Structure formats: structure tokens, C-alpha cells
């Protein structure tokens, strides 16, 4: 992909500034309808998911106390992996977005929730909710574009270090939660910039250290110790469950913004951006995953990445319901709704990581070109 403003066939050239504002109003209307209808049914849903997850996690850990027996190891590991995925994706990610704050239940609230992850909720909320969701797919602003370690857009300058990025990506996938913790800390930038001695950074690093300690103590020391003779097998089981969770969430998240068809945006283009333009950027900057109801739950409904990016604080169980309405808007406004099955989207994202580890084959328009300063609104001009 290339920033949308540099494309010869700009996919939003046919929309006038007025069209974009009307589109924004239509999306607002979808949001208002969900909020008006939000209630007991949704509350029941999230409580059921939370109850299921906790029951599954505790029973899987109980089964793993006997992990010396291979069937117990297999069942316990699978159960724990699923429980951890549910906790991170359908519960943690969405609760931390404030999707359930409207219930006013202090037990299920973005300000009180802590998740089964090495990155403390507070830091993740900042880098994810504030930076990524506000500056989605804006080159130089949204660090989620390659997480600062990879080149995932032709307009990101190439450097020999990117030759190794398929390998980094694989390592990152295996230890994704640590990758996210480092990313939320902006570890690379802070180390390079010599800001690692700043008290603010050190306080945050200490918070991450404490969180890692608690997570490691639980998964790799206390739980194996409680398993007695099954110490080593339980250790292997929790490691495997974390690995599965990491690979799964990494795959789902790669599908959100990296597959073919997703657009990126130039930094200048979001100056003075209107609500309609912001919506349009979210529509074009995200990709969905098609699949079964179970698949959607296991992705935390991030398979409805487009709907999630348009309305990050609507309850996740609603994305599925509004998807046909959102898709109809794409069709009516002549925009491309990017979606595909998981294997295809994962392959597409990986292909991009591999392809862009090498320099661009054709030269891009030079900076300073008229096109690069076009904004979304002026696209029809």
C-alpha cells in the first residue's frame, strides 16, 4: 500500500467534502441506534463471557495439576490457551476500550480492569486507545504501522535493518505480549533518545517490571509448584498456552491493518480533519476477517475491525449486528470493504512483511509532490 494521497487512482476521489460529512452523519446514526437499544441483553452477554472465561481458566488450571498424564496436559493446555485468548481479546481489549463502562459496574470497567498480559492496562490504554485509534494508519503518527520495528508501507523509508523483519515478526508473534509491553513503553525510542533516565519513563518501566514479575510468578512458578510432581509438565503447559495465545492474537491483529486493500494516510492529511474525514480514514484503514460466530468471539470481535475502528466504544457483541449496515454504506459510497477468511488475510499480511523487507521496486513520487499534501476533504478538487 501507499499513502492514499499518493495513489494514481485515489479511491476517494469521487467523494466531495459534503459527501464525506453526510457519510459521517449516517455513521453517527448507526451509533445512536445501538446506544438507544443498548441494555440488559448486552450486560448479560459480557457477564456470560466473563463467567465462562473464569470457569474455563480455573478448571483448566485444576486439570493441569495432574499434567503428568498426557490427556490432562492436552486438555488443560488447550483450555488455558482458549481462556487466555478470551481474556485478552473479547474481555480485556474491549473492557479497556470502555465498551462496558455504561453499565456502571465497577467490576467491569475500563478504569478498574487489569488484564492477563505483561503490559499494564494503564499503559496499553494510552498507546492503543489514544494513539492508535486516534491516528489510525497515519504514517509517522500511528506506531501500530509496523510497531516501530517493521516496514509495512511503501512510503516508510527502507533501511537494511528491515531485511530481517520476517524473522523479527516471527519472534514478535511468539512473544507478542512482551512485544506489546515494549511497544507501550516506547522502549526503542526512549532508549535511543536517551530518555530512559527520565523519572517518568523509569516509573513506567518499573510498573511493567512489576506486572511481568506477577505474571511470571503465576504461570511459571506458583502454578507448577502447586502441581507437585507435575511441575515440569505444568510449566511446559502454561508456556505453550501463552505461546498459542501470542500467536493467535498476533495473527488477528496483523489482519486488522496490514492486509492488501488497506489504505494509509499522509501526516499532513489529518490536519483539521473533520469527524466525517476521521470516519472515512477508519473505514479505509481497517480490514475485517470473515468466519463463524465462534471465530468472531475468539478474535474479540476484532474480526469486525472496520466496525470496531468506527465505533471503538460500542459493545463488541454489536459489531456483528451493525456490520451489514456499515457494509451497505461502503457500497453506496463506492468504497472498498476489505475482508477475507483468516488464512488468506494472515498470508496477505505476512506477504507484505516479507515483500517490504526489500526496497521498493518502482520509485514512489518524491516528497513535495503536490499530491502528498492533499487532504481527504480536498480529494475531489
Amino acid at each position, binding site marked *: 500500500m501507499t499513502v492514499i494521497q499518493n495513489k494514481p487512482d485515489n479511491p476517494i476521489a469521487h467523494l466531495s467534502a459534503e459527501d464525506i460529512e453526510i457519510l459521517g452523519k449516517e455513521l453517527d446514526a448507526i451509533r445512536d441506534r445501538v446506544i438507544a437499544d443498548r441494555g440488559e441483553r448486552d450486560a448479560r452477554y459480557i457477564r456470560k463471557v466473563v463467567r465462562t472465561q473464569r470457569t474455563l481458566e480455573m478448571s483448566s488450571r485444576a486439570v493441569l495439576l495432574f499434567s503428568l498424564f498426557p490427556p490432562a496436559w492436552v486438555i488443560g493446555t488447550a483450555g488455558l490457551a482458549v481462556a487466555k485468548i478470551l481474556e485478552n481479546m473479547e474481555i480485556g481489549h474491549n473492557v479497556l476500550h*470502555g465498551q462496558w463502562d*455504561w453499565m456502571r459496574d465497577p467490576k467491569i*470497567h475500563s*478504569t478498574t480492569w487489569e488484564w492477563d498480559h505483561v503490559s499494564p492496562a494503564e499503559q496499553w490504554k494510552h498507546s492503543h486507545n489514544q494513539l492508535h485509534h*486516534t491516528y489510525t494508519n497515519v504514517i509517522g503518527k500511528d506506531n501500530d504501522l509496523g510497531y516501530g520495528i517493521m516496514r509495512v508501507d511503501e512510503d516508510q523509508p527502507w533501511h537494511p535493518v528491515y531485511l530481517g523483519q520476517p524473522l523479527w515478526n516471527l519472534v514478535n508473534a511468539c512473544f507478542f505480549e512482551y512485544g506489546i509491553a515494549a511497544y507501550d513503553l516506547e522502549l526503542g525510542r526512549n532508549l535511543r533518545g536517551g530518555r530512559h533516565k527520565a523519572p517518568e519513563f523509569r516509573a513506567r518501566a518499573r510498573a511493567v517490571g512489576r506486572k511481568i514479575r506477577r505474571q511470571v510468578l503465576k504461570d511459571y512458578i506458583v502454578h507448577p509448584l502447586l502441581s507437585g510432581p507435575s511441575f515440569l509438565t505444568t510449566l511446559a503447559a502454561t508456556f505453550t498456552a501463552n505461546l498459542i495465545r501470542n500467536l493467535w492474537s498476533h495473527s488477528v491483529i496483523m489482519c486488522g491493518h496490514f492486509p492488501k486493500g488497506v489504505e494509509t494516510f499522509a501526516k499532513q492529511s489529518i490536519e483539521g480533519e473533520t469527524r466525517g474525514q476521521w470516519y472515512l480514514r477508519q473505514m479505509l484503514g481497517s480490514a475485517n476477517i470473515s468466519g463463524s460466530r465462534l471465530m468472531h468471539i475468539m478474535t474479540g470481535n476484532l474480526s469486525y475491525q472496520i466496525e470496531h475502528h468506527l465505533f471503538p466504544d460500542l459493545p463488541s457483541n454489536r459489531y456483528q449486528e451493525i456490520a451489514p449496515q456499515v457494509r451497505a454504506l461502503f457500497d453506496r459510497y463506492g468504497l472498498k470493504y476489505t475482508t477475507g477468511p483468516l488464512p488468506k488475510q494472515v498470508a496477505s499480511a505476512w506477504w507484505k512483511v516479507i515483500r517490504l523487507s526489500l526496497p521498493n521496486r518502482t520509485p514512489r513520487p518524491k516528497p513535495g509532490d503536490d499530491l502528498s499534501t492533499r487532504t481527504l476533504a480536498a480529494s475531489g478538487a
Partner: protein
Amino acid sequence: MTTTVPRPPAKLSVRDRLLRLAETVTTPLLPEDYLDLVAPLRAGAALRGRVVAVDAETCDAATLTIQPGRAWRDHTPGQYVRLGVDVDGVRQWRAYSLTSAPGRPDGRICVTVKAIPDGKVSDHLVRRVRPGTIVQLDQAQGDFVLPDPAPDRVLFLTAGSGVTPVMGMLRAGAHTRSDVVVVHSAPTPADVVFGGELRALAAQGAIRLVERHTDTDGLLGVGELGGLVPDHLERETWACGPVGMLDAVQEHWRAEGAAQRLHTERFRPTVIAPGEGGTVTFTRAGATVAADGTTPILDAGEAAGVLMPSGCRMGICYGCVLPLHQGAVRDLRTGEVTTAVPGDGVLIQTCVSAAAGTCDIDL
């Protein structure tokens, strides 16, 4: 009443150590998050209760019998309990007088709720709540209670659902210790909450009951009290009812120099009439600022030099959420008004909420 006997410190530390070990297994959750799934009413849990019965009292009032959790410390007759119930998925807190006598052998408590027009919580409790529902509770509170020793002569002056704390006192045997007169107003005989029980007490001679049916006889004026209860100013009086009635009663007792013998309980739904803009106070920061109906509270606070948490400033990231201690705010996107009374601590997004009246923000 149950009292908590302090445990010897050595024992506590073992318990603490076990708890800490359990926490290392459940982190980032707490052991209680798992225990709540199976035993929400156990000792040590946050105070909750399970509704075990809902019985109609009149056409628009019902008594909820609740099995409180083990942490319940019982109540003094006349006190109220704050009750949190999920209505349309949203947790709402309201205060209701306890109508059961304390120390029941089954440990259960009762509140009696009258559905008020447009009262979404009272309507939910009277008409929709089913046995089995878990509700959130606070310990009983309030000083609308009889002193010990009990006064010789007592007057209960009530109207509508104002009879509920009085019923709590009568069921606890107030009439066995004092000479009791009850003057109660309701629109019709059928609207008298606990009508049957009160009339039975009167028939036994346990109390003297004066019923006023306002649909046919009009509102009771304080001037009429002298005729109905000639010694009313000499009686220790507990009054509970609508605001207008209480204002008149307080004025009457004060004018007659008997204010020290009058005890009142103001029972009313919280009416915070939302307007446009208002004074916003950041309670801990100690700043007060006048904000109009279109300025986000975030902007108003920052303009006043308050160090406000903030994020996307467009209502998506929830980085600016703060508790609204009391007052009303309007969501600038939907126009929806959120109100809070002290204790609610409703969390609001300050970047998309404007003052809709006087607001206290916990910051």
C-alpha cells in the same frame, strides 16, 4: 447485632499469607472474583443480597424480601439501606427504608418500594424484579430512629411511602414501649401501604390510627392536627412524606416552639433538573469554574488550570474518565443527560460531557 471479634494478630498473618498465595494464582484478578461466581453472599464478599420474594402491597407498591450477604450488620428500625440494581443493564443506586424488624431468625430484610411516575428504578423493583436477582447493598444508615429508652408518647406523621420507616419501627415493637398515634395520608384506602396491618394494630388497641384519604378529604393541613391529635406538640414526632408536607410540618413545630421534638426523614426521588451549563467544582483540586452547556468539562477544567487527565478528546479513548460525585452532565454527542447523587460516583467522559447543572467532579 453481630459484632466482629478482632482476631489475634498471629492468626491474621497466616490468613494473610494464604490470601497472598491465592492472589499469586489469580493475578491480575483477585480470589474474590472467582469466589463471587459461586458464592456471592459469602462472608468477606462485597455486600450484596439475593431477592427471595416480591410481594405486592398495593397496585403500585411491593415488598422485596432480601437475603443479605454474610457481611450484613443488621439495622436499627427506621433506618434505610442503599440498594444497587441493574436496570436495562445499568447499575442504579437508590435508598429505601427497611420495613422488616431487625434480627429475623432467617436473617432476611425487607424493603417496600412504591413505583413513582417515571421512576425507572422503583418501577423496575415493583414490576420487573424476580426472585433470585442479586442486588448490591450498603450497610443500613440513617438517624430516623427511636431513641433508647423509648419516649412515653409518640406521633408518627406520614404520607404515601413515608409510612415505610414507621412500619419498620412498629414491626420492631415501638407500640409496646410507647403510646403510639399514627396519622397517615394516602389517596384512597386501597393506596394505604400496609393498610391491613396498620388497621389490625389499631383494632387490637396497640396504636391509634388516623387515616386521611386525600382523594376524597383533601390534603391534611397542619392546622387540623390540633383537632385530630390534641397533644401532638407534646409527643416525640417522626414525620416522613413528600417535601411539601415536611416543610409545612417543620414550620408548624418551629412556630409552636416544639422543633426539638420533631424528627423528619426526607423521602424523595433525586430530582436534579438538568439545565444548560452550570458551576463545576473539582473537589480535590479545589477549583470551581462556571461552564456553559456547550463546553466540555475537560476544556472548562483545563481553562481553570486543573490538571485534567485527557486523551483523544473525541470520546473514543476513555483516557479522561472521572467520577461525577453529584450533579448532571449532558453528553455532547447524544444529548443524553447523566445525573449522580453523592455516593454514586458515576464515571463520565469529560471530553464529551458538558455541565447540565451544578456538578462536583472527584479530582
